């Protein structure tokens, strides 16, 4: 009897230990290292739609390098997951990373330098995008996947109805927006364009702003620069007049306005047709794309909103095989064709931009020259420069500009707040920042 009681208590203890161990051991484990000829298993995170099908095509053709794909919710969500798993050293071998997040990942030392594996691909990418994956150094932290130049998307049916033409300049945009809303109070030319940090930074790139720059060992933050101030006060005035609507982007409220024709246009990047399919499903085929309005008539400059590269993480035991997969995905025609057809990605690869897979997206079906235009805008995109805490800037931006748009408040004060928060965050994290 005594013995059996001891056995029972020991069993209870063991069960508890097992339970505790079960609680603490979660997350994927890195594959064991192996010789050159052995089968290699790689893990891959991305938020590109239908990426599972693209990966399946790779796996079928490459039995020795098998990729397991996990779908992420989106750029921000995946970055948070990467930063957390990076601390635990459980990152996947390969990850999709937005261009503006690359410095954050590199400064945490979470990305592998794959320069020696991707020697031949340099010439296939525009300089602006290649600079984003090298951060201006000799290292290569990924291969560009998509380009995201800004453009002006408008409803062809409604522009005809209200007798409007796509504005060539921002001055024209302002007068059209004011006149339209005065004459027809239930519709707007567009939303504020200032509730999403990614879009706003793209608009300031067009005006010549450089939000981050590095010199020697210190960073300079140019968020509150004359170029950005010009863009902020322009939109601040439009919001104050009530010429554009002040709803927060990416809410159900906003999608409804896009879907039911309250908004006649949307300033977005060339990925817009795919996004409209989910945000404004009833408007298929009614959209067209034109160049982003310019500050000076006759100029041809645009900015970028998003875009991403595919990178090998520092946790990968097989960087060479991982780089091989990335090159196939973003450079070789089989991969880029699948990216375009299945993933609705506008490819960064120059060869793919003139490839055969480019069929006009259904949401802009009336526009046969969609990809010719997109390629043109891609060339005109100003080079973006990113710092190590872009996500902090975007978060501070949503807070400050969200409040300014909702209350029709001071946009310049909001811009100053973002600058101040970003500089403070960089200093707290130990970066050297010159000026304020």
């Amino acid at each position, binding site marked *: 009897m005594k013995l059996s009681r001891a056995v029972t208590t020991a069993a209870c203890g063991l069960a508890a230990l097992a339970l505790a161990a079960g609680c*603490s051991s979660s997350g994927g484990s890195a594959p064991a290292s192996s010789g050159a000829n052995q089968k290699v298993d790689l893990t891959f995170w991305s938020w590109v739609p239908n990426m599972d099908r693209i990966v399946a095509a790779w796996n079928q053709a490459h039995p020795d390098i098998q990729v397991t794909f996990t779908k992420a919710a989106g750029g921000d969500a995946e970055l948070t997951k990467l930063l957390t798993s990076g601390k635990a050293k459980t990152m996947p071998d390969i990850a999709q990373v937005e261009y503006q997040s690359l410095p954050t990942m590199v*400064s945490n*030392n979470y990305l592998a330098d794959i320069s020696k594996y991707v020697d031949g691909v340099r010439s296939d990418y525009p300089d602006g995008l290649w600079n984003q994956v090298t951060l201006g150094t000799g290292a290569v932290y990924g291969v560009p996947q998509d380009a995201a130049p800004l453009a002006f998307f408008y409803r062809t049916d409604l522009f005809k109805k209200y007798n409007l033409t796509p504005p060539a300049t921002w001055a024209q945009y302002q007068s059209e927006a004011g006149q339209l809303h005065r004459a027809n109070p239930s519709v707007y030319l567009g939303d504020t364009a200032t509730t999403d940090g990614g879009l706003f930074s793209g608009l300031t790139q067009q005006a010549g702003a450089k939000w981050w720059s590095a010199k020697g060992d210190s960073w300079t933050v140019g968020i509150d620069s004359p170029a950005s101030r010009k863009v902020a006060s322009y939109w601040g005035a439009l919001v104050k007049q009530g010429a554009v609507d002040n709803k927060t982007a990416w809410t159900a*409220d906003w999608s409804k306005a896009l879907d039911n024709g309250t908004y006649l246009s949307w300033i977005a990047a060339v990925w817009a047709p795919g996004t409209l399919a989910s945000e404004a499903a009833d408007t298929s085929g009614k959209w067209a794309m034109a160049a982003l309005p310019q500050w000076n008539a006759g100029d041809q400059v645009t900015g970028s909103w998003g875009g991403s590269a595919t990178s090998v993480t520092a946790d990968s035991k097989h960087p060479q095989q991982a780089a091989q997969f990335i090159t196939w995905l973003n450079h070789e025609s089989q991969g880029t064709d699948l990216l375009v057809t299945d993933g609705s990605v506008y490819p960064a690869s120059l060869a793919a931009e003139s490839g055969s897979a480019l069929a006009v997206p259904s949401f802009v079906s009336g526009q046969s020259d969609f990809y010719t235009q997109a390629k043109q805008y891609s060339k005109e995109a100003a080079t973006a420069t990113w710092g190590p805490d872009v996500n902090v800037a975007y978060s501070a931006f949503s*807070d400050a500009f969200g409040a300014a748009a909702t209350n029709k408040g001071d946009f310049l004060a909001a811009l100053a707040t973002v600058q101040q928060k970003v500089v403070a965050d960089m200093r707290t994290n*130990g970066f050297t920042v010159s000026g304020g």
Partner: protein
Amino acid sequence: MAATEVVEAARAGGTAPRRRRWSPAPRRTPYAFMVPATVLFTAVFLVPLGYTVYLSTQKTQIQGLGLGRGARRQVFTGFGDYTGVLHDSEFWHSVLRALLYGCVLIPVMLGLAALFALILDAQRVRFQRFGRIAIFLPYAVPTLIGSILWGMMYLPSVSPFVSVMHTLFGTTSVNFFGAHAVYLSIANIGVWGGTGFNMMVLYTALRSLPQEVYEAARIDGSGEFQIAWRIKLPMIRPSVIMTAIFSTIATLQVFNEPYTIHTMSAGAVSSTWTPLMTIYHDTYTGDDVFAGSAESIVIAVLMFLVSIAVLRLTNRQTFGGESQ
């Protein structure tokens, strides 16, 4: 083992072999019984807590631009992170906002919970079972889902309230995300989700009261209202205190409701609106797990102090009530 015991027992004179034989068991078994609880407590509470305290004493040191290999090192900073937290006005503003939110939420939620519990407990109430389940049901809805549902009802162009107001009064000026209104909007989600649970606690306490007291009161001429106010409520005071403490802790920890509203209107609810949102923002968006750890420890200490204060306050009232 048994052999040694027998030998020992024999040496002792053989007078009490049975007692001697059984004595080791009570000495060892209690510890064995404690093993599961101790292991779990250590693994899921002490170790993470210790690790958080350790992280809160570290910081990142950056060489040059902070890019490339070895540019970033983790170094000891002592109380540096805590000094940062104490001087962070955004953090203390988030604490104040949470307390203000609690001042709206707790009285309304506990008041309604007590009211519903008393109504359900009163005699001659119809649909008791249905009422109990209906009031409890929102608690079974995950707060995140509840917050999304309410958020949709607040957003102007999809809100049924706004459209009803528009049809009835021709106005569309109801703004659920106004600077002050947003506290009520968020507290409303908390009341909706939390009343049922607190009502259940109070109702269970009421059901366990002896019925004889009511009988005596009725014989003495008390009505249902007097019984509720003078007998039932004072007798379930311990449960009321417990729900008050739980609600206070939940207030300082509020995250899901304001975070969901934040994703719908960052202008009304900033990314650092409550303490936990600040911790989340600094840890993940700001990529500074060290500052986040220090903030977590400060919030834990604050929560401990507020709980003690609530306990003291309500106890004093209890004693005051008894002495009258």
